[in-house]
């Protein structure tokens, strides 16, 4: 449809989901909605990496439990995280023992997984697939920035990597929540090279994706929510402004997941949350239930990713941003 938008022909439903969040997130705005909150970010494991993996597996098992399924009833497992070589997801896939595609879209991995998973189901290559992403603050921090106990002042543009994981089960067939359209992202790089200012590096990509979607589908009227993954406060402002310049007045229906997780004042997170886990936990705890509460509605989730490598940032290269969009519609409980 249009230049870039995919319309799925078969109905694809989000059958169930589960979210697991870290200690700090568990004291944030969405505290009462998580399925499980870690007591300590180490989750009883000996390393942050193992903790992240366990968290992801936990989320997947909870999601399966809710859908009354077992892992063997899944045809595919799609997922990603922020660790080098997306190792946490690979270990989860090892435990789940189903065909696996590892994705790396940085913080856009969830939306990327939704698009590809829906494509697989729409093409008739399977009946059910799991999409699962995670991120862990301490594991990401030590890989991308400084050791966790190092006393540094974070800049005001910096975002806080969310410790959390979300697992979603997609199924071919009618259901309350349906994935109906998608818009794959293009790399947009506006020459930002500061790795603690990822919001502005990604905002341009988000604008590009949202504007293409609106152009292809005929404007805003149809949409109830536009939700970006993790632009943070600064990226959010830029994105909103740029969309307005292009003639899309999104005020009132545009939100950012990164700004929904923490209490801004007391939790000292500066620009907001980020990471693969960010959109994964907010979609499941806030926006899907919100659609249900309203009885109907359409939501465009735009997963935004800063595809940076710490190595090239040190070499002075710029940060390529990407944004994948999926449209989720709530059709009501009746149809299933």
């Amino acid at each position, binding site marked *: 449809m249009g230049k870039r938008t995919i319309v799925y022909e078969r109905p694809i439903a989000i059958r169930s989901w589960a979210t697991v969040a870290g200690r700090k997130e568990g004291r944030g705005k969405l505290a009462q909605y998580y399925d499980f909150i870690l007591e300590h970010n180490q989750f009883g494991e000996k390393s942050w990496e193992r903790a992240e993996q366990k968290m992801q597996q936990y989320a997947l098992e909870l999601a399966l439990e809710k859908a009354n399924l077992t892992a063997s009833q899944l045809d595919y497992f799609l997922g990603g995280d922020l660790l080098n070589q997306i190792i946490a997801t690979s270990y989860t896939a090892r435990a789940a023992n189903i065909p696996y595609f590892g994705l790396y879209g940085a913080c856009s991995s969830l939306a990327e997984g939704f698009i590809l998973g829906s494509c697989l189901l729409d093409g008739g290559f399977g009946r059910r697939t799991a999409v699962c992403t995670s991120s862990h603050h301490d594991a990401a921090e030590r890989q991308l920035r400084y050791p966790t106990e190092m*006393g540094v002042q974070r800049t005001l543009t910096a975002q806080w990597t969310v410790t959390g994981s979300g697992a979603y089960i997609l199924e071919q067939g009618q259901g309350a929540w349906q994935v109906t359209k998608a818009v794959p992202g293009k790399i947009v790089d506006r020459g930002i090279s500061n790795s603690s200012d990822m919001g502005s590096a990604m905002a341009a990509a988000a604008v590009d994706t949202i504007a293409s979607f609106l152009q292809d589908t005929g404007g805003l009227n149809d949409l109830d929510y536009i939700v970006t993954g993790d632009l943070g406060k600064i990226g959010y402002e830029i994105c909103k402004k740029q969309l307005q310049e292009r003639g899309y007045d999104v005020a009132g229906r545009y939100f950012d997941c990164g700004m929904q997780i923490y209490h801004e004042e007391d939790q000292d997170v500066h620009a907001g949350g980020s990471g693969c886990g960010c959109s994964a936990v907010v979609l499941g705890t806030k926006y899907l239930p919100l659609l249900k509460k309203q009885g109907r509605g359409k939501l465009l989730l735009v997963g935004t990713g800063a595809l940076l490598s710490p190595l090239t940032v040190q070499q002075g290269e710029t940060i390529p941003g990407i944004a994948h969009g999926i449209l989720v519609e709530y059709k009501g409980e009746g149809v299933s």
Partner: protein
Amino acid sequence: MEQCIEHALQNREKRLKKLQEMDEKTMEDLLQELRIEHQHLIADEAAGADGAEQRYYQDLLEQNENQSLLIQKKIDRMYQQQTKLVTPKAPLTKNVIRAFFVGGMICLLGQIIINFVMVRYGLDFKAASPLASISIVVITAILTGFGIYDEIGRFGGAGSMVPISGFANSVVSAALEFKREGMIYGIGAKIFTIAGPVILYGTVASVIIGFIYYLMG
């Protein structure tokens, strides 16, 4: 084909003179044009037989790439200007006062230790001063282990990073972080990831200064 492209390039060169006044959409369109042209040129260059012909295409390619770069830079600059407008400024006064306070307190602690050991144990200043440094390093290491120093750092910024305690914090935090990778590849290899530059350039600087001292007799 190539004449056509050459012509297009020249035309565009003229239009680019007015780059400052262009809006984003026009520039995006120009970029798209340039991308298509680039592709044609690559194909022509690959098919081109002799050296002279290839050089001609390479020349056109270079022009093409320069034009793209020019437009891209302009788009980037516009975007970055917009970004600056919404980026909050760091509260300079507040940060400076905090840094001054925290840094001052650490130095005060050092001075207290020096005075204490000089008066109490009768050490001379030359012996007391390293003792103060060592004490502060040990205290910082312990505070880092308990996760207290990173809170101080968050508050004090440069005030807690510049004194020797900042150095100790960077070493201990790296050691804590990488201990899971083992004694050799973890702690051994990574303990000085942050402090390494300080050690290296500190040593180099001391060698140079020592040399100057020597020359001055």
